[in-house]
């Protein structure tokens, strides 16, 4: 992984596409009203990669993006782009471009004038800036709409205009603030694929803020889960989804059941746990350590469960509270006394071969390696 340590002093885009490495060092932001939006973030984003900042609203992800963009200044810490500190520089000098959540297309300017805006303020003659703008407009397939006003375009077309307007500045880093939130579901899926494709083609760094888990894991090389102004986990998309570090990340990403138990014994790197309801669990410790008597949390993927006939080690028994058909699988929710609901994604075919009725008891079991120890925070 390339990091900011590989100093690239030239702001120009390189053909290999590794410019635009970002490093945040102890970045914090306290607003004048006293609210601490970002609480000392350390983060490295490789040049030419697609990074998603993911978290619930108010977690500081947008503030972090705006600090990278230069629309907020951090109250502490440094922001390095390709090795040089950009705090205090204008967005232009940083080599960043931002796509705003509402796109912020100038409503009184045509698509062409919107896209050419950055050239216009730099004093590029009209003919030249229109020629360049038309090239970028062609890249986003909006040539026939070049003379229209933004208000006359659909949401997806507006997003392309915003993209073109940002890309014409030839940024090293493109910052996208919830770029898909204004679109309907169908367009969202289409546009996220287009964004990913665009990033691959340009080879620049994309930093994309979202609160949608599936969106993040679908597009990103690196997913950064944030909460309360802090980074909870930064990893590859698969790493975040399949190996959440903490109960918070596991629950936020979904797709996991978080269980807890007290360590009874540890042998050969495997801890034997006793759940609050007396269930027996076995969890591989890996590099982590656990002492007898300690309470630990672990995650089990909802889609790696199988219907178990009876209670054995690594199984859960509960009353079926809800059954939701999801097309490719069936979501079963079990209630257990004194414990959170347990969710299982059962293969659609397997479920309908042996349907289970709501209100009956059911048991699910999992293989040892499907349980994943969590770090307590």
């Amino acid at each position, binding site marked *: 992984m390339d990091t900011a340590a590989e100093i690239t002093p030239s702001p120009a885009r390189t053909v290999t596409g590794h410019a635009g490495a970002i490093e945040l060092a102890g970045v914090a932001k306290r607003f004048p009203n006293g609210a601490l939006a970002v609480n000392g973030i350390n983060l490295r984003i490789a040049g030419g990669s697609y990074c998603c900042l993911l978290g619930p609203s108010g977690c500081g992800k947008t503030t972090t993006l705006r600090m990278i963009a230069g629309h907020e200044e951090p109250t502490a810490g440094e922001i390095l782009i390709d090795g040089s500190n950009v705090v205090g520089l*204008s967005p232009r000098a940083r080599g960043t*471009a*931002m796509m705003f959540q509402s796109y912020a297309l*100038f409503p*009184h300017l045509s698509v062409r004038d919107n896209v050419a805006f950055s050239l*216009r303020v730099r004093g590029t003659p009209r003919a030249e800036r229109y020629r360049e703008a038309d090239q970028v407009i062609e890249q986003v397939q909006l040539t026939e709409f070049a*003379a229209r006003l933004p208000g006359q375009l659909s949401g997806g077309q507006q997003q392309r205009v915003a993209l073109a*307007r940002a890309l014409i500045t030839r940024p090293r880093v493109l910052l996208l603030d919830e770029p898909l939130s204004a679109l309907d579901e169908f367009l969202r899926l289409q546009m996220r694929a287009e964004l990913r494709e665009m990033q691959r083609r340009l080879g620049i760094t994309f930093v994309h803020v979202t609160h949608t888990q599936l969106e993040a894991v679908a597009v990103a090389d690196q997913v950064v889960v944030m909460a309360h102004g802090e980074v909870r986990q930064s990893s590859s998309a698969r790493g975040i989804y399949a190996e959440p570090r903490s109960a918070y990340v596991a629950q936020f990403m979904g797709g996991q059941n978080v269980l807890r138990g007290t360590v009874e014994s540890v042998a050969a790197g495997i801890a034997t746990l006793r759940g609050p309801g007396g269930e027996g669990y076995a969890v591989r410790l890996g590099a982590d350590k656990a002492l007898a008597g300690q309470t630990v949390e672990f995650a089990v993927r909802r889609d790696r469960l199988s219907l178990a006939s009876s209670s054995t080690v690594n199984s859960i028994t509960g009353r079926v509270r809800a059954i939701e058909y999801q097309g490719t699988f069936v979501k079963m929710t079990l209630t257990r006394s004194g414990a959170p609901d347990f969710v299982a994604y059962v293969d659609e075919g397997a479920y309908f071969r042996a349907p289970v009725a709501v209100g009956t008891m059911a048991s699910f079991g999992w293989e040892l390696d499907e349980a994943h120890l969590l770090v307590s925070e």
Partner: protein
Amino acid sequence: MAIVSARGGRPWTFYVLAAIFVGYVAFLYGPMLCIYVLSFQGPQGGLTFPMRGAGLHWFNQLLSQGDTGDLIGAISRSLPLAVLVMAITVIVSFAAGMAFRARFPGSNWLFYLVVASLVAPGYVLGIGIGLMFQLLGWNTDWYTSALGAQLSWTLPFGLLIMFAVFGRYDRAYEEAARDLGAFPVQTLRLVVVPMLLPGVIAVALFGFTLSYDEFARTLQTVGSSNTVPIEIWSMTQNVTTPSIYALGTLTTALSFVVIGVSLGTIALIQRRRVGMKSL
């Protein structure tokens, strides 16, 4: 209970409301219509019906500056004053509207002060300004004391309109412009002002009409040369011919011209915006 009658015609409430509306319109425009008609009295005509002939005699009388007063002179002061007030109101309230988007120390108190000048009785304020000028040994004049007195009235109005205008305006546009490398002056010229132009025109219209029409604050501050409303008022004190009606007709016509020009300008801007699609 159904308001619509069983026959499917209009409900009885329609006729009641229509009668009230017609009565109101008659009350509003009837007297004005009388004045417009009477202003075309013949030379032998009086202040009341019936008409004795018809013509522009009293308009000639009015404008020939005979016994009626110096209306042309008043207009030649009122128009530049109104334009001056309009310009200052637009610039200051636009800048203040931008400033008030952020909270700054004392912003609340400044706002209360602004509103207080709107609430203060205009006549009293005018006397106060007149007295102050006298105290300082300055001459009151339309372009000094009257200008200040009128601004105390138009600026709060302009600011309140700008609040409404900026209330619907998203700061992201300015950030986008800055993100694209625009300097603050470029952002203002290329983004903020063009986007808010309809609101700015509204403020300009208000500034102009409030000034052109201002009486209470101007009466004690205008000095020796009158503005139009004061001139009209002083005419009503001593003119007893249909000239005074001719004046009413003339000022109304002028108002319609101003309204027509402003609406035309707004319509033109909107057409230009929409028209871009067909390029």
